[in-house]
């Protein structure tokens, strides 16, 4: 037993397990210790050490018999607490789901389980995945393992981004080898950027949404959060696949994503959208983006300027579409079938008391915005209008992808900020997702790759966007960019 196992990636561990350098049980024990030692990050809502050990023992038994389930067999991972897990508390970071223990397993976590993955626990998140800093969780904020060396936030506790902040902090802090996330408007990619890890939002429909607690059904998509692009390819292969239980799950074959990492991007066309050079962009982010362009050019790709003319309207359209869908999806939390019930004099009174106490401020705000946008007299002016703008944004991408294979942009407009900042102005918080939301509206795959450090020593990510169901090209370019960036883990002042 040694702590030296925590820096391993999935591909390292796959090879190490294969060679018998260590067992799945040893890996699980190492991570359970790391998870317990890292509790001050508040990355986990529920630790499932017993399940982890049980599954690790089963994995070792399979290996001994020569029937390994695949590259994820024996890999210790964390699960965002938005995925329903059979007989394990599932909270969505909300008070309203107090004590909810599902009688079923989400398709994504069932796929991972069948692939032999070892669940360490359920990670913290913004309540119902609504947030960009992991500060709206009923279970408290998550701390980013990274600390700024210099600057105004030097030494302060930083946010991990959101909503998959617990997953990002767990992977970045070495408390899990990888984790699942979900992304509705940037919730995998932005925290990946803030925590210096890789985060992939697949094409809408690539991973089943069945059993994943719904936020906005036309946008939600599960994906891997990992230490490397190769790991993202391996883990996506285990998560993805057509599922008849989700009518929006795509009947698409799951390719060998890892095989796509050829290291060769000669002749590929990389689009640079001019509209993403927003006014007042942080010069550091601009410089990082320019470096990314240079890396891909040197690696043989052709750089092409593209135009996505409706970009500036994406956030506003998103903040109608997502809350509208959320207001409908969250209608089910009524104090009758699961979770919290706050008594009242009548049924209506009980509903109102339960939802008034059970939902936090940001969730209430979004339900109210959504209810308003869908209410009589405003439906056409807001909801239908936003859906029309969504069509324009998707058409922008369709047009751009006629001339390029992938698009390169920054992931987030800033590095991680200090806990307590940006909390009073909802609109300022929404701007964190300015570069990730358009991809979500169009349903396209996007990946954030750690590409460098800010002047204060904090990680910054670059985003690659691909064609629908072409995660292979996306991963191939991301792999080349990762090698060029030569990003290494060090958490700043803590190390």
């Amino acid at each position, binding site marked *: 037993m040694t702590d030296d196992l925590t820096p391993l990636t999935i591909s390292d561990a796959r090879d190490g397990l294969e060679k018998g350098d260590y067992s799945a049980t040893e890996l699980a024990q190492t991570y359970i210790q790391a998870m317990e030692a890292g509790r001050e990050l508040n990355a986990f809502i529920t630790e499932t050490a017993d399940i982890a050990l049980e599954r690790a023992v089963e994995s070792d038994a399979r290996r001994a018999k020569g029937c390994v389930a695949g590259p994820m067999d024996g890999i210790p991972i964390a699960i965002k607490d938005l995925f329903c897990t059979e007989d394990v508390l599932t909270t969505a970071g909300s008070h309203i789901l107090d*004590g909810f*223990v*599902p*009688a079923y397993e989400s398709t994504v976590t069932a796929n991972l389980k069948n692939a032999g993955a070892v669940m360490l626990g359920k990670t913290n998140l913004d309540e119902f995945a609504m947030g960009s800093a992991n500060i709206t969780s009923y279970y408290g904020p998550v701390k980013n393992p990274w600390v700024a060396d210099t600057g105004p936030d030097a030494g302060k506790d930083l946010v991990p981004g959101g909503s998959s902040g617990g997953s990002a902090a767990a992977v970045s802090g070495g408390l899990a080898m990888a984790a699942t996330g979900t992304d509705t408007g940037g919730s995998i990619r932005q925290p990946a950027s803030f925590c210096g890890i890789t985060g992939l939002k697949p094409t*809408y*429909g690539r991973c089943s949404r069945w059993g994943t607690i719904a936020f906005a059904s*036309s946008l939600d998509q599960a994906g891997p959060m990992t230490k490397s692009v190769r790991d993202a390819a391996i883990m996506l292969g285990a998560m993805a696949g057509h599922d*008849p239980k989700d*009518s*929006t799950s795509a*009947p698409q074959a799951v390719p060998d994503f890892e095989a796509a990492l050829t290291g060769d991007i000669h002749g590929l066309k990389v689009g640079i959208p001019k509209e993403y050079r927003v006014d007042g962009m942080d010069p550091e982010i601009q410089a990082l983006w320019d470096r990314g362009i240079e890396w891909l050019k040197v690696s043989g790709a052709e750089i092409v300027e593209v135009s996505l003319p409706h970009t*500036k*309207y994406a956030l*506003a*359209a998103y*903040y*109608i579409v997502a809350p509208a869908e959320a207001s409908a999806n969250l209608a089910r939390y009524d*104090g*009758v*079938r*699961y*979770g919290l*019930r706050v*008594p*009242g*004099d*009548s*049924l*209506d009174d*009980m*509903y*109102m008391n339960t*939802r*008034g*106490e059970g*939902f936090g401020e940001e969730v*209430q*705000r979004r*339900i*109210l*915005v959504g*209810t*308003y946008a869908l*209410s009589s007299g405003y439906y056409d*002016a*807001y909801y*239908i*209008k936003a*859906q*029309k*703008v*969504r*069509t*324009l944004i998707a058409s922008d991408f369709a047009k751009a992808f006629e001339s390029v294979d992938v698009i390169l942009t920054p992931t987030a407009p800033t590095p991680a900020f200090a806990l307590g900042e940006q909390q009073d*102005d*909802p*609109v300022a918080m929404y701007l964190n997702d300015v570069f990730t939301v358009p991809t979500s*509206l169009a349903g*396209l795959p996007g990946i954030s790759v750690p590409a460098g450090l800010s002047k204060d020593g904090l990680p910054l990510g670059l985003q690659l966007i691909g064609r*629908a169901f072409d995660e292979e090209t996306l991963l191939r370019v991301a792999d080349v960019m990762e090698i060029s960036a030569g990003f290494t883990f060090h958490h700043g002042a803590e190390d």
Partner: protein
Amino acid sequence: MSLDKDTVKNIAYLARIRVEDDKLEPLAGELSAIMGWIEQLQELNTDGVEPMASPGALTLPQRADVVTDGNCRDGVLRNAPDAEDGFFAVPKVVE
């Protein structure tokens, strides 16, 4: 776009969320700021543009009309805040 207190009270009722009277005014301010920011969508001409409800397939798949699930009453009821005789229980709705 500015929302007043009464509008917020009405939306909150539609959404069945209890909002105390002293919270209505600040909430109206926050929601007005959000809706004001969203107002920028109106400057775009979207005449003749089809609304996009989902990036997925336009026609939903069909399957045979057969029971694929069931016999899990106890599993479903075990999360209920109140259950009696195999049913969800709620406050009295009929006098």
